[in-house]
């Protein structure tokens, strides 16, 4: 039996609880109609991030939400702002931010545990394998791009923004082709590595990580879902309340 008392939420909660919350928030992010309801959901998710020890991320989301809401409401009467898409971006981005906040907590598990949970959910192996490769390759891609940029600079090709804009096709060719060739090489190495680790085996696979929904997880899941359902049903009342407060 694994003792979870006193462990931070990120280590003690099951991934499936966080995935369910992400699904619920994703639906609510475009069904809630009133500003006050959105604000309650946003603040609750800030608290959720805090519980996961993601204080830096929480402050980042708080800053952007405040910037997009308060900042834009301060400058909304300026004709240029009225005529441009800034107000729209403010509204759209704030709604998109909500499921992304949940996604941050989903990505907290170690890679192995994440994969073990997805396998436990009986998802197709191709999907689990694709996700595993995707999550591992994204940082590698950034690193490869940086190397190619340095190599380009050392040869005096597209070494500045002005040069890049002056020779866009050359810059593109000198970036894209090496990136594609490197990607092919990495793919060969990854395929060999996955093959050695038994990715081709058809039968049941075991995992180092124990994946199970404990009582605590069920309570957490129930609490989160109750909160989201209540928020959905109280949305019109919260709208009226915000009108009354105005």
């Amino acid at each position, binding site marked *: 039996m694994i003792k979870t008392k006193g462990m931070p939420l990120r280590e003690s909660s099951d991934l499936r609880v966080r995935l369910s919350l992400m*699904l619920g928030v994703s639906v609510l*992010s475009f069904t809630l109609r009133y*500003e006050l309801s959105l604000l309650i959901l946003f603040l609750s998710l800030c608290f959720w991030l805090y519980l996961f020890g993601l204080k830096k991320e929480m402050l980042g989301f708080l800053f952007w939400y405040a910037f997009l809401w308060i900042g834009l409401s301060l400058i909304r009467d300026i004709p240029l702002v009225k005529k441009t898409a800034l107000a729209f971006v403010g509204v759209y981005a704030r709604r998109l931010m*909500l499921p992304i906040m949940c*996604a941050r907590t989903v990505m907290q598990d170690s890679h192995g545990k994440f994969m073990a949970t997805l396998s436990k959910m009986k998802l197709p192996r191709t999907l689990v394998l*694709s996700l595993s*490769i*995707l999550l591992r390759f994204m940082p590698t891609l950034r690193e490869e791009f940086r190397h190619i940029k340095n190599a380009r600079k050392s040869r005096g090709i597209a070494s500045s923004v002005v040069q890049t804009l002056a020779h866009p096709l050359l810059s593109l060719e000198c970036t894209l082709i090496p990136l594609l060739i490197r*990607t092919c090489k990495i793919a060969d190495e990854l395929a060999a590595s996955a093959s050695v680790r038994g990715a081709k085996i058809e039968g049941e696979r075991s995992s180092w990580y124990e994946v199970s929904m404990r009582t605590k997880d069920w309570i957490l899941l129930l609490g989160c879902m109750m909160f989201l359902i209540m928020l959905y049903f109280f949305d019109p009342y919260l709208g009226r309340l915000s009108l009354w407060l105005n």
Partner: protein
Amino acid sequence: MNSLQENKVIGLKEIVIVVLMSALSIGIYLFCAMPFMASPKWSVLGGYSLGALISGPVFVLAITKAPKIGASFLFFAVKGIYAIVMGQIPTGIVYLVGGVLCELVMFGMYKDIKKATVSYCLHSVIFGIGSFTPMFLAADVYAKQMLDAGMDQSVVDAMVYDLIAPSFLAIAGALLIVGSIMGVFIGYKVLKKHFRPAGVA
């Protein structure tokens, strides 16, 4: 799985190459959309069209290296998985359905340039326009919130309803198709010039 099926259906090595190419394509689209992010209309007209053009060689290399059942679906499905992981579940579902359609277009003819072009055009159109799935699902909610924020009805119409208007979708679709056709054309040229001599494809 018998050996005949194994030869026709995408295997481990092909899965890895297609997933990596799709990840690269996501990076290209994000990079291209960045300068146009202030305007949703221009992010489709400019960002996604440019992304379709630059991502063309990536798609061509992916299907050349993995000309098997599932390659075209996986190239699009990875984008759907990425959207779902990022919390954009409705958009992710649209991309997965788009992947099935792209696969149906190419089914069994993975070396046919015309089929590849049609499949990639479909991919680009669904990827570009599908990125606004929440807008299609809840345009009124966004419009109401913008009106509450003090915007004029004319501005709201221009930002929300014009984005899902058939006329805009037709223009965006046409631009995405042009970008995709050029992308695939450049892709095959690049394949001949760089990848075949280097022994990569």
